[in-house]
């Protein structure tokens, strides 16, 4: 556990670096090219996590979404299945949309996953980058801040695993409520996923939670101020500055060319569908290539991706890197499995090597140094 890492911030030698893979449960295509059913997509996600465990990836995180593109709306249920079929990989959500859920239920589900996995659960709380869950579960988007404020406060109280008395406006009050099951370790590892709100960084520091930065576009360097803010805030508040994590999309194949071609068509569909809701222009091939080159898409051969990751890890001085490997939408299920395998067997060892070569060297402008 990373509680003791606070003094390392200026001299990170990256030896404790952790690597994760993240998925939203996108529906892949089978060998015949047909998009698989939701049930098959869930089983594909389990198969990918099992492989990740075998190839030594440290963590898998599964997102919660309430949209047709994604098979997973109940991540803990999938994580419990993975728990049975894996030995050591840590099991997380990425993210749990706490704002539209009940912190008591969230605690119960994660404590159960933690038990079933022998203590491997970690929760990544977030407000979510989508808004579907608010009307679906009867919450008003205008209460966005209040919902997260109150619920993270209650969740923090539940983490002590003692009877909780709590009162707020977003759920029923609790009076000495003792919530079960209890964990063996006595505390669930908890992160907050932050997409770019300084307020969320401060909140994370306030509760002493770990910070996971969702960096899904642009150069990673622009998130450096958030890392800095987190560290300064924890110092001022007297809470622990855990190593920061980052999560970004990417894809790995044997060659750069193959990875780009496998990823782009499905990614464009997903990106344009979501973009239409958010007022983004359709994705062009040149935008895509620019993001692969200098932005936050980690796509290519193992070596290309490893170099880019090493640069970003150095720039932001993070202790954990999670690759969202399923963002290519309806792509081949076997290519997806292969990407997980390459990430574990090739990319991670290469990143470790690159970082060990020149640990003190400071690099900026992630992604600009390769090729």
């Amino acid at each position, binding site marked *: 556990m990373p509680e003791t890492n606070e003094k390392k911030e200026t001299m990170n030698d990256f030896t404790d670096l952790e690597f994760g893979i993240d998925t939203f449960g996108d529906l892949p295509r089978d060998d015949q090219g047909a998009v698989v*059913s*939701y*049930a*098959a*997509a*869930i*089983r594909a996600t*389990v198969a990918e996590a099992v492989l990740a465990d075998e190839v030594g990836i440290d963590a898998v995180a599964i997102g919660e*979404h*309430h*949209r*047709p593109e*994604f*098979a*997973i*709306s*109940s991540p*803990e*249920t*999938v*994580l*419990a*299945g*993975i*728990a*049975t*079929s894996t030995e050591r990989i840590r099991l997380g959500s990425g993210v749990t949309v706490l704002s539209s859920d*009940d912190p*008591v*239920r969230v605690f*119960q*589900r994660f*404590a*159960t*996953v*933690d*038990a*079933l996995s*022998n*203590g491997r659960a970690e929760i990544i709380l977030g407000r979510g980058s989508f808004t579907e869950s608010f*009307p*679906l*579960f*009867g*919450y008003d988007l205008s209460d966005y801040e209040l919902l997260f404020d109150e619920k993270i406060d209650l969740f923090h109280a539940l983490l002590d695993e003692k009877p909780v008395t709590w009162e707020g406006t977003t*759920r*029923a*009050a*609790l009076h000495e*409520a*003792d*919530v*079960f*099951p*209890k*964990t*063996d370790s006595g505390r669930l590892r908890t992160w907050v996923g932050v997409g770019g709100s300084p307020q969320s960084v401060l909140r994370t520091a306030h509760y002493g939670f770990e910070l996971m930065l969702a960096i899904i576009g642009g150069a990673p360097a622009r998130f450096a101020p958030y890392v800095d803010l987190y560290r300064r805030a924890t110092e001022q508040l007297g809470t622990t500055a855990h190593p920061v994590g980052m999560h970004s999309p990417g894809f790995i194949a044997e060659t750069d060319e193959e990875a780009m071609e496998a990823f782009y068509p499905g990614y464009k569909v997903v990106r344009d569908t979501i973009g239409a809701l958010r007022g983004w222009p359709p994705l062009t091939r040149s935008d895509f290539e620019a993001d692969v080159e200098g932005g936050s898409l980690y796509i290519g051969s193992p070596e290309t991706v490893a170099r880019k990751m090493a640069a970003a890890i150095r720039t932001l001085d993070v202790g954990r890197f999670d690759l969202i490997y399923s963002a290519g939408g309806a792509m081949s299920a076997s290519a997806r499995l292969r990407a997980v395998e390459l990430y574990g067997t090739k990319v991670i060892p290469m990143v470790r090597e690159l970082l060990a070569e020149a640990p003190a060297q400071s690099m900026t402008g992630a992604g600009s140094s390769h090729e």
Partner: protein
Amino acid sequence: MAIRIGDIEFGLNSFGDIATNDGRVMSDAESLRLLVDEAQLAESVGLDVFSIGEHYREGMVDSATPVILAAAAQATSTIRLGTSVTVLSTQDPVRLYQQFATVDGLSGGRAHLVLGRASAIESFGLFGYDIAEYEQIFEEKLGLFLRLMNEDRVTWTGQYRAPLENVRLHPRMPQGGIPTWIGIGGSPDSVVRAARNGLPLMMAIIGGRPDRFAGHAELYLRALSRFGQPELPIGQHSLGFIADTDEEAKNIHWKHWQPVVTAMSEERGFYAPTIDRYNTEVDTGALYVGSPETVSRKIAGIVRANHLSRFDLKYDVLHLPREAREHSIRLFGERVAPRVRELLDEDPGEWHLTGRTPAEIVKGGKAAHA
């Protein structure tokens, strides 16, 4: 696989009661992992269903039922995975659909549900519901849940959750949803509700003479007929424990059952158990405790009397040693289930009551409507 009513099925039910191991009380987490082992064991000894309840109190670890079932799904390949029961009143039907669609997907179509109003009331306070409204809440949520299972897109308004506007949930359950039973504790209204909705009936009989529920079973069959529903399965859930001899079974079971029921009697205001009353309960009541032969005869008798096509044994009791649980599960699957089938073959009695041709049902009790 289509079966006909009358192919008696056997289920194992847990309430997530904490076990002991070599005299030590197991942790919540250890007890949860034990459940997955027991689901695997249930499958290996040939049982048809493994079900987990939903409780919110110390000593019971089943607060996140679908999460446990998902872990069991990965550890098994043929046994069906269900609930005993899901407290629908304090669940959100939308989340419930999503969670059980996920379990069903993970398990390759082995998930099913027994929905009930619950006999324990902790969940009402914990999740902010008024127990006084529990009838209306259940009725409304059942209606919504069935619509979510049966319709592609749902627009809905009600009193106990936010309205839904043209919503299609993900992941999808198979067309028509997953097999869903109604669990009842003795209320005739609940029996009629199950029949009206065309859902199989699970009777929780946890005390007293179990054959007094024959009236409920008959009411159910009559109501099905009146509502124009096909004939559907009736199941019974009861508590029990099986050991090599009657004596051993009773000794071990009483030792663990007595403190639990004493505590419950103080909480709910009924008489504390005595050994005499316990013996009566075992001999003629709803406790299925004894040797394989004793329990088999008792189950065969109640299958005939209550027109059952499924019998679920709730096998765990607070602090029951894990070896005793394991042995009881083994005996239930390897000895009791085949013996009950044999006894029913020899003497089916009044088992088939109505004389109507039973509906073809898929395994799990869902009408096939072929």
